[in-house]
């Protein structure tokens, strides 16, 4: 079965600093990767996804992620964060073998941006 590991449970950064949130997944022949963001007391919304093609994926709010098949990673990056980026971020994976093609989520990374 697929699994996702988010390597950092909490990432504190200062405003305007760059940030990287790390995600590794278990290997599979066909895998699709997602990053979701959850703002306080809200549901999850899609930041970006990788299906195929270019390994650098751009998402909303200036975020991007790079798919690295050899390292089975899908790290999320932003060159300059804002206070409003404070949220919990979830990496998720899906493949054709997953029952109901449900997303399997990592445990989340809390990004805290301070001034």
């Amino acid at each position, binding site marked *: 079965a697929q699994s996702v590991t988010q390597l950092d449970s909490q990432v504190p950064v200062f405003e305007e600093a760059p940030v990287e949130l790390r995600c590794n997944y278990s290997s599979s022949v*066909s895998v699709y990767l997602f990053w*979701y963001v959850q703002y306080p007391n809200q*549901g*999850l919304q899609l930041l970006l996804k990788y299906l195929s093609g270019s390994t650098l994926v751009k998402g909303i709010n200036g975020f991007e992620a790079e798919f690295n098949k050899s390292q089975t990673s899908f790290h999320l990056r932003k060159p300059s964060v804002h206070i409003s980026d404070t949220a919990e971020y979830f990496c998720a994976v*899906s493949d054709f073998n997953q*029952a*109901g*093609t449900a*997303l399997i*989520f990592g445990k989340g990374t809390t990004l805290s941006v301070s001034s």
Partner: protein
Amino acid sequence: NAGVTQTPKFRVLKTGQSMTLLCAQDMNHEYMYWYRQDPGMGLRLIHYSVGEGTTAKGEVPDGYNVSRLKKQNFLLGLESAAPSQTSVYFCASRRTGLAGGELFFGEGSRLTVL
């Protein structure tokens, strides 16, 4: 456009009581999911449905039942609530079963079992 709507948003139960969470989506999506979110655990799949009249178990189905009598609604039931079911519950839907499709989430239902 409402998207995915969950009711109620908050509920407090006593151990042994029953309740039903309702998820409604207005996007004509085929697939629907119930997840629970616990601190440090991420989201774990409880049950899912691949179409009207179908349901299946996910990773953590024990203590829950579901029904999908209408395409737009997916109900999650707790027959006899336990403190271990204190959690935030999220419903999600997806247009088709394509593995690359986006899941759309509701805003969550926070359940406390005393």
